[in-house]
Each structure stands twice: as structure tokens, then as C-alpha cells.
């Protein structure tokens, strides 16, 4: 069978060469389709529920593909008229591109403010001030706005930011490279330092580094291999033919990637290095066999010798190739597409190398003039000496070799639990690179660029109940030091309510929310936090770090909080028409939830221990049990003001004389004191005082409504004033001076007095609550994403390791038809991996997307040495040599190839040390050690074990 294969290769050599040539041309042509994909979000299985939610949110809200640009003036103030005009023009220009969903900068941040008798909702810098005094004022105003600082302006005002959201479905890296970066530089390169943050920009710069890496590393590895081949074989054929194998195989693999439109990424520079380094082994073995057969003393013709060499090298090369392929195929179980695809293409590359080595080298060798090559290679003689020393050591002291090896193994594996996982992508890039420097600036001054979102899905997110739940979660997140600037639809509603009605809170009716919504309809920023049908919404925040530990910490905190919050359902209770006792109990019950929010706000604005909850609870309970009444002096005073404001205004509903207004006002006041302020009584008063010509039932009802509304409002105001007075010592002094805290706290106190209570109890004091229809509340964004990545990294690593081991073992057992021999075969790689992983723990080299490939590559490649050596020992045993002699001979015949091969592979991996990306450098470092150990242990431990165990080796296979 092997003879027939050899015969075919020699006879059909021109066919083999032609087919190889045609395929090479085809694949070279396909390389034009090659492209990079370095977005971390593209590396995971999109069917995974967490990844799917992440992507879905990005689609709906345009939040995942965020680019942050920070600008710092090179000369003077960034907040100058010229720079602001440029920023405005840039903001407008970017918005016009179809690839861009929306753009936020200080130019168009929503500014909701009170004006005389009214309210204004506008873009912050619709008009850019002309003179420096106005600019200074507007800058100070911007720095006073909580939602702006560390978001679109740094705390010191020296940096302005642009947040650019790329539309879902568009290529974000391309959009960044072809649109965003050139546009920003067009306006600002000459006048400002520009910092870029966010996944698309990091991926863009990573692409750049990787392209440079490929251009740098590939020629070096080719040169290195050529040198090794020259040193090993010392002749042109020995250099050119194996080089051609790997060169062609590499071209085919990249061509195949182009053909299948499979992207290149972070690991890709390792691929040609790997293929060239590993693939050269097959060429080396084939050439070695051909030269060995050529140099043997026999009567056979050179062609027959060539056929014999092919027959003898076919099986071990195929087996070696197969086991390496298996090693790479173990990556298929990886949850990261970059790793699984790397595994596939590496496996295919090895397959190509194997087949090209077996078929192409002999075909090419045959068309060249056949001759004996007897030139002695001085290097190979040096190797012979070294191998002689090793073989003597092993043969004479097998037990010693095993004991020492075992001891070293045990020492190293103790370090394995210390291995750290690291998925911090930004740290893969060089320290002074643009993305890393930018990352630190944006993290420090602008809250970072990695989104954290809480996703809500319900019937109608404009429901006051759902909005209050949302606001509660947002206040919790605000207090987390790791999360920055959370915002949601609740911030808009509350701010408008505050500017319009003096209270920073969610109205307790759906119509109240609807009325406030009027101001916000159509604003671009709403799209980022709520869908058009109001069924899905977000709390959007940012985290400053992409480091896994940091992200996991945030994620776990929020996860635990949400699990506790949503351990049951929520129910709403309306207080209108309830008896006073139940009303009080419900308010007191609700108060506990309100105190939670006050506590979080206190800690955020005033630090820990700035709020004494127990004191607040007691005071508020007391106040709730003694709610203000209209006849209370403080309430009366407020009612008096408001009644005057209403009745004597131009818009009072009845067009009546001043005299009648006075009479009405006095009569109503008396009515309050009589404690008879009900609609029917008001209507009676109006009917009596308003002239018949003016009186109208409907208008009278409206007036009554307004008056009752006013009284209720007065009671609430009085409650809050009393609460603030009595709660004074529950807060630290600096806390109450903080305007933002004060505003929010007052809003929360207002909610104690409104008519909506939300509890987790379905039934309270005999009253059944109405279930709030909130279908889903889930965390998403980078923290969840990174945690998923980490889990995948760990499971992928274990799966890959086990799979490679088990499959290799099965293959070895099958090939050798011996369980013992199969088990012995995997001893060198077991030893190697124990040392290597122990070394990772010892040296703090982290496990990441790249270093997780170590196991698969080490097993797949390292096993080759054992295969070749055991096979050679078997051949020598079959030739009639006793075991010891067979081993000694194998050292000289196969040992050289093993050493040359391992040197070639080590050199190949050494080239990765020149990479600009740290994971590739780490891979290089570790694989050098792995290859050394695999070869060394195959030449020491393996024969030592064989000598001691004496398995049945040899016989026709």
C-alpha cells in the first residue's frame, strides 16, 4: 500500500506539481478578501443568551458601539469660541453620516432650565457665546451640571468629549477608521490633543498593530527557518524544498481564509509563525529520510531509494500531522470564535503542510537530478555527540531520570492554582500606544467608555410604578463607585418636573408622566434609553475599566442586588379612597424603600456615615402619623399664597371683578378653617358668588379641582418642610449643602406624600395590590460580557486540554494497538504541560485568549516527538535489535530530526517575542519552553520509561 503511494507520487510527479501550482495561484487570488475583526464583541457565540441580549440592546438603543473622543487644547482653553464652533460643526457633520446613530457633545446635551414663568428644553450650546465673560459663565454652568461632569466635560473643564454611537449593523471599525477619525482630525488635529476610546477604536488600532506584526514577523520566521534548514542539511535542496512546503501551506491557509471570508484578528500573526515553524517539521522529516536513504549503502537506484524513503516516512509524518491536527481541533470546543477559527485554520494548515511535504517534496526531488549527497554536515556531527551523551545517561540511569523528572513535575504543578485569568484587551497593546494612553485619559477624566446597562421590558415603561422601580435601581448604581453617570428616562422626567413644578420626582399618575413627556418627545437622546413603543428601556452607565476582575466585581454586585430586588413581584397601591389608618401604614411601609434611596444618595454625595437611617426613620414615621392638615398654620400659609396666585391671576377660570375675587378668596379661606373643604361646598360657594352670566358648571368643576389640587400640594409642601427641619441631624452638614442631593432628597420625600405606593407584598392590610407588569429586568453591557468571556475562557481551556489529551491518547492507543504504549506516549507531553502551566502560575503570565491555545498546540506538536521516536524504536526492534540497542540507534536516526525540528519550532515561536501584542509575546515565551521540554522529555523520560516498563514495541503496524 505504502509502496503504491510512493509509486504514484514518483510516477505522477508532474501532476502533483501542477495541481499544487494551480491551487497556490487560486489561494493567492483569494487573499484579496482578507480583513481584520478585532472587536471583542464579535468573538463570542451569538446564541448565548447574555451575548444575544448585549447585541439586541445594541440594535435597539445604539449603545454598544460607542466611540468616545476626548479633546484637550494644545494651546489655551478648550472652551473657547473657536473650539466650540469647530465642535458644533463636527457634531453636525458626524450626525449626517448614515453609519452614525447619534452624537453627543456639550453642544447638544439637553439643558432643561427654568425661565421666567416657564421652562426651556434646548441643546446646551445652540448659540455659542461671543465674548470670554459669557464663555466663562457658560463653562461654569456646564461644570455645575451633574450629568455633564465626567461625562462630556472633565471635572477641571480641560477636556471636552464627544460620544459617538455607531448604528447597529454598520461596520464600527471601518466607520471609525474611515469616518470618525478623519473627521475629528480634520477639525481638531492642529489645535488639540485627541484621545480615542471605546471598542471600535481599540479594535481599529489593534488592526494596525497586527498588520505591522504580520509584515514584521513573517519575513523573520522565514529567514529563521531557512537558517536552521541550512545548518541542518547544508545544501540547497534541504533548504528550498521544506521552505516551499511551509510557504505554500501558509499561502493556502490565508487564501482559504479569504475564500471563506473568515476574519483575521489578534491571534492571526501567530498563524503563519506556527505554520512555518510546525509545518517545517514535516518537510524536515521527509528530507531527512530522503537524505538518509540516499546516503545508505545499498545497491538500490536513487529512484528506488526515494520510493523506499517515502514509504518509510509516510506513516510517521501522517501520524505526526494527524496528532497535531487533533491538538488544534481541540480548539473547536472553545467558545471564542477567534480561538476556534484559529484552531480550524491551524489544523488545515498542518494538513496542507503534511500533504505537501509527503507529495510535493518527493515529486520535486524526483524532477531534480537524482544524486547521492554525501556531504557531511558538521552540525549534524555535533548533534551526534550530544545525542550520544544523552542516550548513555538515559540507558544507564533510567530510574534516576524518572525520579528527577517526577520531582520537578510535582514542584511545578503546585503553582497551577496561582494562574490568573486576564481578558483585559486594552493591556495587550503597547504601553505608549494611542489606545492605551487614551484609555487612561478617558478613564480618569470622563468616566470611561465601557457601557453598563440595565435592561427593562414591560407593558408600558411610562407607567409611574415602573419608572419608580427604575429610578430606585439607578440610585443604587449611582452609589456604586465602579459605575459612572447612570442615566435613564427617569432623569429627564424628574428634571422637567423639577423645573416646571419644583419637585424632582416621578409623578404618581400616568397622565402626570404623559404631560411631562410632552417636553421631551422627539429628542434624540431618548432613543438611547427607551424604544418608540415604550416597552423597552435602559439605565445606561459606564465603567472606566475593561479589566476582567473589575468588571466581574461590578457585575456581581448588581446581580446580587437585582436578585434581591426582584426575588418577588411588585405591586402598586393607590391611596385615594383608602381609610386613614391603612393610608398611614402604607406610607410608613413605603418609607423604608425611600430611605434605601436616600441612603444611597447620601453615600454618593456625602460619603459613608453621612446619613443616620434610624434617626430618619423615627422622625419620618412620626411625621407620617401626623400628616399636615389644611388648618395647620404652615399649611394655611402656603394655601394662602397659592390661592392668591391663582384667583387673582389673569388666567383665573372665571372672568370676574376684583371685588368678587376678593370675596371668593376670603370665603374659601373660611371654608378651609371650617374643615369643610370639599368639592360640593366649593361649588356652592362659586354658584353663590359668580355672576350667573359668567357661571358655568364645567368651569366651576375645574376651579374646584384646581383648588383641591392646590390644597393637597400645600399639605405636601408642608410635610417636606417639616421633614427637612426635623431630619437635619440625620444628615452630615456638607450633605445638605449639596444642591443635587438636596433636590433629589426632597423629591423622594415628596413621594412619601403622593398617592402611589409600590411594595413587594401582594396584599397589605386587607387591600390587594395591583401587580406591576414588568416582564424583564436584566443586566447587560461590558461587565456581563466580560464575565461571560471569563467563564468561556476557563471552560474552553479545560475542554481543549481534556479533548486534546483524550483524543491523542486514543489515537496513540489505536496506532500502537497497545494501551500501555499509548499511555507511555503521552508521558512527555503530560510532563511538559505540568511544567508549563506551573510556570504560568509562578511567573504571573496570565491565561488569556491567546495563551489558552498553549495546551492544544503543545499536545499536538509535542506528541510528534514521541511518535517519531517510538516508531523508530519499533522499526529497529523489527530489524532484530534488542530494546536497548534499538533505543540507542533511534537516538541517532530520529534524535537529530527531533532536535532540529524542535529548534526550528522554538525559533519560530521565538519570533513571536518581537510582536507588539503582549499575548503573542507570552505565547512565544511559553511555547519555546514547551517545545524544548517536549523534545527533551521525549529524548529522556520516554526512553527511560520504555526501558523500565518494557512494553511490546515493534511488530508490523
Amino acid at each position, binding site marked *: 500500500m505504502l509502496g503504491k503511494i510512493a509509486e504514484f507520487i514518483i510516477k505522477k510527479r508532474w501532476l502533483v506539481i501542477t495541481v499544487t501550482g494551480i491551487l497556490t495561484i487560486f489561494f493567492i487570488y483569494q487573499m484579496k478578501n482578507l480583513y481584520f475583526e478585532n472587536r471583542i464583541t464579535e468573538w463570542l457565540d451569538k446564541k448565548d443568551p447574555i451575548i444575544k441580549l448585549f447585541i439586541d440592546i445594541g440594535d435597539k438603543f445604539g449603545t454598544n458601539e460607542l466611540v468616545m473622543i476626548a479633546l484637550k487644547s494644545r494651546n489655551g482653553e478648550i472652551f473657547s469660541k473657536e473650539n466650540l464652533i469647530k465642535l458644533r460643526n463636527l457634531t453636525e457633520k458626524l450626525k449626517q453620516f448614515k453609519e452614525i446613530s447619534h452624537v453627543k457633545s456639550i453642544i447638544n446635551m439637553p439643558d432643561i432650565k427654568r425661565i421666567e414663568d416657564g421652562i426651556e428644553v434646548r441643546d446646551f450650546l445652540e448659540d455659542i457665546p461671543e465674548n470670554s465673560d459669557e464663555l466663562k459663565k457658560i463653562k461654569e454652568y456646564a461644570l455645575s451640571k451633574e450629568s455633564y461632569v465626567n461625562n462630556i466635560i472633565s471635572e477641571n473643564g480641560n477636556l471636552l468629549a464627544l460620544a459617538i454611537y455607531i448604528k447597529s449593523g454598520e461596520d464600527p471599525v471601518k466607520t471609525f477608521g474611515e469616518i470618525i477619525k478623519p473627521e475629528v482630525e480634520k477639525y481638531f488635529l492642529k489645535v488639540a490633543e485627541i484621545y480615542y476610546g471605546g471598542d471600535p477604536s481599540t479594535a481599529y488600532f489593534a488592526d494596525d498593530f497586527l498588520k505591522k506584526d504580520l509584515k514584521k514577523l513573517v519575513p523573520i520566521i522565514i529567514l529563521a527557518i531557512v537558517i536552521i534548514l541550512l545548518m541542518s542539511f547544508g545544501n540547497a535542496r534541504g533548504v528550498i524544498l521544506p521552505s516551499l512546503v511551509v510557504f505554500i501551506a501558509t499561502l493556502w491557509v490565508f487564501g482559504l481564509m479569504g475564500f471563506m471570508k473568515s476574519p483575521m484578528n489578534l491571534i492571526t500573526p501567530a498563524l503563519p509563525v506556527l505554520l512555518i515553524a510546525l509545518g517545517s517539521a514535516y518537510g524536515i522529516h521527509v528530507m531527512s529520510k530522503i537524505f538518509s536513504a540516499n546516503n545508505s549503502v545499498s545497491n538500490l537506484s536513487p529512484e528506488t531509494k526515494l520510493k523506499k524513503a517515502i514509504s518509510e516516512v509516510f506513516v510517521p509524518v501522517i501520524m505526526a500531522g494527524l496528532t497535531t491536527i487533533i491538538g488544534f481541533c481541540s480548539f473547536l470546543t472553545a467558545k471564542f470564535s477567534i480561538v476556534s477559527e484559529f484552531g480550524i485554520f491551524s489544523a488545515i494548515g498542518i494538513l496542507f503542510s503534511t500533504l505537501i511535504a509527503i507529495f510535493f517534496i518527493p515529486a520535486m526531488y524526483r524532477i531534480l537530478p537524482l544524486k547521492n549527497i554525501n556531504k557531511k554536515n558538521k552540525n549534524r556531527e555535533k548533534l551526534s555527540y550530544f545525542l550520544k551523551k544523552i542516550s548513555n545517561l538515559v540507558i544507564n540511569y533510567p530510574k534516576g531520570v524518572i525520579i528527577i523528572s517526577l520531582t520537578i513535575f510535582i514542584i511545578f504543578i503546585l503553582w497551577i492554582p496561582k494562574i490568573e485569568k486576564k481578558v483585559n484587551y486594552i493591556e495587550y497593546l503597547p504601553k505608549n500606544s494611542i489606545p492605551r494612553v487614551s484609555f487612561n485619559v478617558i478613564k480618569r477624566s470622563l468616566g470611561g467608555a465601557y457601557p453598563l446597562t440595565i435592561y427593562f421590558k414591560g407593558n408600558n415603561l411610562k407607567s409611574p410604578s415602573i419608572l419608580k422601580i427604575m429610578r430606585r435601581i439607578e440610585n443604587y448604581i449611582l452609589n456604586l463607585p465602579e459605575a459612572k453617570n447612570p442615566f435613564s428616562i427617569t432623569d429627564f422626567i424628574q428634571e422637567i418636573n423639577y423645573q416646571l413644578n419644583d419637585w424632582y420626582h416621578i409623578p404618581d399618575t400616568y397622565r402626570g408622566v404623559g404631560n411631562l413627556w410632552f417636553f421631551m418627545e422627539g429628542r434624540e437622546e431618548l432613543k438611547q434609553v427607551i424604544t*418608540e*413603543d415604550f416597552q423597552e428601556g435602559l439605565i445606561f452607565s459606564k465603567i472606566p475599566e475593561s479589566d476582567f476582575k473589575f468588571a466581574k466585581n461590578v457585575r456581581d454586585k448588581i446581580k446580587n442586588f437585582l436578585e434581591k430586588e426582584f426575588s418577588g413581584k411588585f405591586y402598586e397601591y393607590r391611596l385615594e379612597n383608602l381609610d386613614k389608618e391603612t393610608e398611614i401604614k402604607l406610607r410608613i411601609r413605603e418609607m423604608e424603600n425611600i430611605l434605601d434611596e436616600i441612603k444611597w444618595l447620601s453615600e454618593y454625595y456625602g460619603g459613608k456615615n453621612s446619613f443616620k437611617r434610624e434617626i430618619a426613620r423615627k422622625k419620618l414615621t412620626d411625621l407620617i402619623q401626623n400628616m399636615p392638615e389644611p388648618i395647620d398654620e404652615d399649611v394655611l400659609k402656603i394655601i394662602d399664597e397659592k390661592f392668591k396666585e391663582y384667583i387673582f391671576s389673569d388666567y383665573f377660570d372665571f372672568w370676574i371683578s376684583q371685588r368678587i375675587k376678593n370675596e371668593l378668596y376670603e370665603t374659601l379661606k373660611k371654608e378651609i378653617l371650617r374643615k369643610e373643604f370639599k368639592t360640593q361646598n366649593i361649588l356652592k360657594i362659586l354658584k353663590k358668588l359668580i355672576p350667573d352670566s359668567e357661571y358655568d358648571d364645567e368651569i366651576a368643576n375645574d376651579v374646584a379641582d384646581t383648588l383641591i389640587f392646590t390644597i393637597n400640594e400645600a399639605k405636601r409642601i408642608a410635610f417636606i418642610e417639616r421633614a427637612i427641619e426635623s431630619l437635619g441631624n440625620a444628615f452630615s452638614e456638607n450633605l445638605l449643602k449639596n444642591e443635587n442631593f438636596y433636590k433629589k432628597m426632597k423629591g423622594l420625600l415628596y413621594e412619601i406624600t403622593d398617592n402611589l405606593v409600590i411594595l413587594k407584598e401582594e396584599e397589605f392590610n386587607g387591600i390587594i395590590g395591583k401587580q406591576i407588569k414588568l416582564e424583564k429586568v436584566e443586566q447587560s453591557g461590558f461587565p456581563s460580557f466580560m464575565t461571560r468571556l471569563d467563564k468561556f475562557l476557563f471552560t474552553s481551556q479545560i475542554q481543549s486540554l481534556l479533548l486534546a489529551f483524550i483524543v491523542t491518547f486514543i489515537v496513540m492507543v489505536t496506532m500502537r494497538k497497545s494501551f500501555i504504549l499509548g499511555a507511555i506516549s503521552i508521558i512527555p507531553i503530560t510532563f511538559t504541560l505540568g511544567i508549563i502551566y506551573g510556570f504560568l502560575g509562578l511567573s504571573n503570565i496570565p491565561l488569556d485568549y491567546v495563551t489558552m491555545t498553549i495546551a492544544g498546540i503543545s499536545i499536538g506538536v509535542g506528541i510528534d516527538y514521541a511518535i517519531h521516536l517510538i516508531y523508530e524504536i519499533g522499526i529497529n526492534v523489527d530489524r532484530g535489535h534488542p530494546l536497548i540497542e534499538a533505543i540507542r540507534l533511534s537516538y541517532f536516526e530520529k534524535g537529530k530530526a527531533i532536535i532540529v525540528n524542535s529548534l526550528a519550532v522554538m525559533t519560530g515561536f521565538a519570533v513571536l517575542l518581537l510582536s507588539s501584542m503582549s499575548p503573542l509575546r507570552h505565547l512565544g515565551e511559553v511555547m519555546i519552553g514547551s517545545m524544548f521540554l517536549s523534545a527533551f522529555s521525549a529524548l529522556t523520560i520516554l526512553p527511560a520509561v520504555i526501558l523500565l516498563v518494557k512494553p511490546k514495541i515493534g511488530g508490523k503496524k
Partner: protein
Amino acid sequence: MKKLIFIFFSLFLILNFNLWAITGKEILKKVEERTIGERAPKDVEAIMSMTIVSSKGKKKIRELKVWSKNNIDKDDWRVMKFLSPPDVRNVGFLVLSDDRMYLYLPEFHRIRRIASHNKKESFMGSDFSYEDMGTSGFTRFYDAKLLSENENEWVLELTRKSGVSKPYSKIKMWVSKEIEIPFKMELYDDSGKLWKLAEQEAKKIENYWIPVKIKMTNVKKNSYTVLEMKDIKVDQGLGNQIFTQRFLRRRVK
């Protein structure tokens, strides 16, 4: 002989220099007469439905009752009150001039002034801005040039006058010769790019041609809004008391 030459010369001038040809400015004045001038209704009361269609095809419908009063040579007055959806029923909007606009939020029993900057903002999430919903006319703010005409229409180009604070730098207007009302307008932003497209249909009600359907397309966002008027009543002698904050507080029937 001299007399003949003079007559011939005069005829030549008349025929070749189009001394009697209509100008863009004149056409625009005709439009204004029909819409806000003496040939416009003195007042209008109608039900207006507003259908807002987003770029994703999602529809929202609002219904309003509107009253307007044509104050010739002064700012027109308008009151709009929402009939639906329920959460904005009775929300009222009063326009007395470009910088005097009021909003009534019934849930809070409060009237608030809207700042003049807001005019560029979207009205109720539609593709009409507050500015678009106003009635300030054109001749004060734009220079008009007649681009072309055929037997049915004039095509005007309106260029914003310098120093004027209007959102559209240029308007291309197609005016029907028969009814002297625009049926199509292209509205351009400050950089000269097409921003919105307004298309309207008019109907004769009593002696007036009144736009009964206006479609405003935001070309940049790929969304559009359709305003449709029904139950239109004109010249009812609407009193000034309708155009007051007091009336704004009234519930809509």
C-alpha cells in the same frame, strides 16, 4: 419716422424685457395673502389629526382641536388642545407671537411659557418644529426668486435674509397658479442640504383654499408626519377670549 422708431423701440422693450412679468416677491405676497393675509380666513376652527411615522415605520397618532385667528399685519393667534391620546388630553398650546407661547399641563394645573429657542425643537415628537407650526409668513424673512413656471405652477426659491433667525437657509416652493397656495416645499438646512420636504393638499371651504393635509418628511431621519384637518369651520367670528391663557385651561370638548 422718428415716431415710428420710438413706437417700435417701445414695443421691443415691452416684448423683450418682460416689464409686466411677475416676480418671486409678488408670488410670495400672493401666497401670504391666501394664507395669512386678507384673502385668508379671518378665523379657523378644526379638528387636526397628527400621524407620526418613525424611520422604523412605527406610528403614533395624536388628535387636536385647533383655533386660529388671522390678525392681518400682525402675528396670527393659535390655540391647540389635545384630544388624544389620553395621557395628553386637554394639554393646551397657545401661540400669540413668535416669542409668546404658552403650554397648559392639566395634570399640574399649570400654565408655562415656552422659550423662543424651543421653536426649533420638534413639536410633540413630530417632524414639524414649533417654528413650522407657527404662522409667521415668509416675506419678512426670505427673499424670493422665481426659478421657473409652467401653466400650473410657479417654482420659487426663497433665500433667508441675513440676520434672520430662521431654521431654513433656503426654501424651494412650488405654488399652484390656480389657488396661489404652495403644494410642495423643500426646506434646506444651514449647510445647504435638504432637510425636510413638505407636501400639502388644499380644499376649498367656502371662499377659501385651506390646506387640509400636510405631509412633512424629515429627509435626514427618514421619518414623516401627516397633519390632516377635518370639521373645518371658517369665519365664525372667534372672540379674543379664546386666545387667552384662561381658555387654554378649558377642557376640550
